[in-house]
């Protein structure tokens, strides 16, 4: 087992003019690991990814991919990586089959054309001009082209945006198989479910920085499970209980006040039990009661809100 990380990023900074799009980002990705970058629009995910892909130099910090500087050593790195851009263009006048054929010409030891078209799920669309493909179909062709050269490292920038649920699951299967086969993957996504499903580790970015990172469990851990219900009519707020010390948090949505308890270490069950017993004793009906585990979405929203404030 090679202990050298496949990707090593430390203190990465990247400016556009005066604007610092990436302001000191650090992470490592080991061989055969899938690392997901999540974050708000404009957080700097694409900029980070394109710097790793060697499109632009870092303005500060270090970036290593497979032991090389991906910008200065593009010649060494490019043949070993696969890139799916957020907004790469196609030659609209070429058919699917022609596109694959030409791209195979650019790639040393490419996958067979049939296999590539199979990965894209476009077997019955080979003679169609790329211009006429749907958005999701283009995205699948995009992915298949990124896999053409059996890359050791795969960069996917919002790979499933615009895909229908079936195509999305097919893509997840492809990516999972690649990771099982030892490919290292870095992807960005706005679908939290995608990150929960695929990522070994993830990082949440906001305004050029990484807020939280770790496994899904680690990232979610500090954020607490939640119990919520509508504030019963006529009940003074001061009379709300503090089950197991949890403090009620009030928010007005749709004209009704919603009470939320965020639960720390001990889990939902004891707090819920105390709350229900209190309601029973006081003959209070808890409308719209729900209890759920913390999700990536909670973390995401609190990162976005917290830093916006």
């Amino acid at each position, binding site marked *: 087992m090679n202990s050298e990380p496949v990707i090593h990023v430390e203190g990465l900074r990247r400016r*556009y003019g005066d604007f610092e799009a990436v302001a000191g980002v650090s992470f490592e990705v080991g061989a055969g690991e899938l690392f997901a970058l999540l974050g708000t629009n404009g957080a700097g995910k694409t900029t980070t990814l394109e710097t790793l*892909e060697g*499109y632009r130099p870092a303005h500060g910090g270090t970036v290593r991919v497979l032991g090389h500087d991906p910008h200065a050593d*593009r*010649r060494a790195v*490019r*043949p070993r990586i696969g*890139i799916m*851009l957020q*907004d*790469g*263009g*196609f*030659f*609209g*006048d*070429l058919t699917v089959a*022609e596109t694959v054929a*030409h*791209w195979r*010409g*650019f*790639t*040393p030891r490419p996958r067979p054309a049939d296999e590539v078209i199979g990965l894209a799920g476009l077997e019955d669309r080979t003679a169609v001009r790329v211009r006429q493909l749907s958005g999701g179909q283009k995205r699948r062709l995009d992915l298949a082209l990124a896999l053409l*050269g059996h890359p050791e490292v795969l960069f996917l920038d919002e790979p499933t945006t615009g895909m229908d649920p079936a195509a999305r699951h097919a893509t997840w299967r492809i990516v999972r198989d690649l990771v099982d086969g030892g490919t290292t993957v870095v992807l960005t996504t706005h679908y939290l479910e995608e990150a929960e499903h695929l990522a070994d580790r993830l990082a949440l970015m906001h305004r050029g920085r990484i807020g939280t990172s770790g496994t899904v469990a680690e990232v979610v851990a500090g954020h607490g499970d939640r119990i919520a219900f509508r504030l019963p009519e006529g009940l003074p707020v001061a009379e709300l209980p503090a089950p197991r010390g949890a403090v009620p948090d009030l928010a007005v949505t749709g004209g009704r006040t919603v009470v939320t308890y965020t639960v720390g270490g001990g889990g939902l069950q004891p707090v819920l039990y105390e709350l229900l017993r209190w309601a029973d004793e006081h003959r209070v009906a808890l409308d719209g009661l729900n209890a759920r585990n913390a999700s990536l979405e909670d973390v995401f929203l609190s990162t976005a809100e917290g830093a916006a404030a």
Partner: protein
Amino acid sequence: MNAALSRRAAPVLAVVRLDVRLLWRNRTALFTAAGLPLMFAALLLPARGEEIDGRSAALVQGTGHLGFFLIFAVFMNLVSVFTARREERTLKRMRGTALSDAELLGGSVLTAVGMYAAQVLGLLVLLGAALDGRFPADPLLLTAGLAGGAAVFALLAFALSGVTPNAEMAGLTTLPVMFACMAGSGVMFPLDELPDGLREAARWLPLSPVVEITRTAYFGEDADGAAVGLLDGWSHSLYAFAVLAAWIVVGRYLAGRLFRWEPRRG
């Protein structure tokens, strides 16, 4: 050795194959790169029999066209190829493959220069077969002049594509260069007919040295019609080669400054 060479050439040829196919699909681009030269060549035929300064007018203009066709096949063609690919982000996608920057850009330059070379050969055959011309007096000098011209206009195409906002505008941004070269480089009429000051300035246009070298190499005579020996052709062309070299330096600098891989944002 041969196997190693063909392995190195394979990626460039892959780009050439793509370029040829795309050019064939894009009839507007094909017309600019190949149709216009064909028209200019056909227009030489009615000029048969007329004379300029004791030389066949068709041959004078035809030898001018040997250089002039750089404007269509190399210059205008490459400006629109690079501008369109940058704006459609296909340049960015191609750059994400195993191709090096040199292979990616060199393949397109090779396609353009190959098409231009074919036009030159066709034109030489036309000059010889239909217009009473002869075999060029100094083919090596001719090749050197045209190759230098190809380098200049490829570099200028890189630079101009960087300031051309989109493929439609490429027709407009290249037009001034085309007209300046057509009128001021001695393609249609010898530069002697221009007033003194203007003539000296015109010699510094990027196409002028190419046309001058081409005529010296083709006729084996200098501009005044005096026969020059083989080596004299080269020494007569020193000034022109110096102008070409200067344009290569300027073109290289501008290309480095202005060429862009991705659309400008905001």
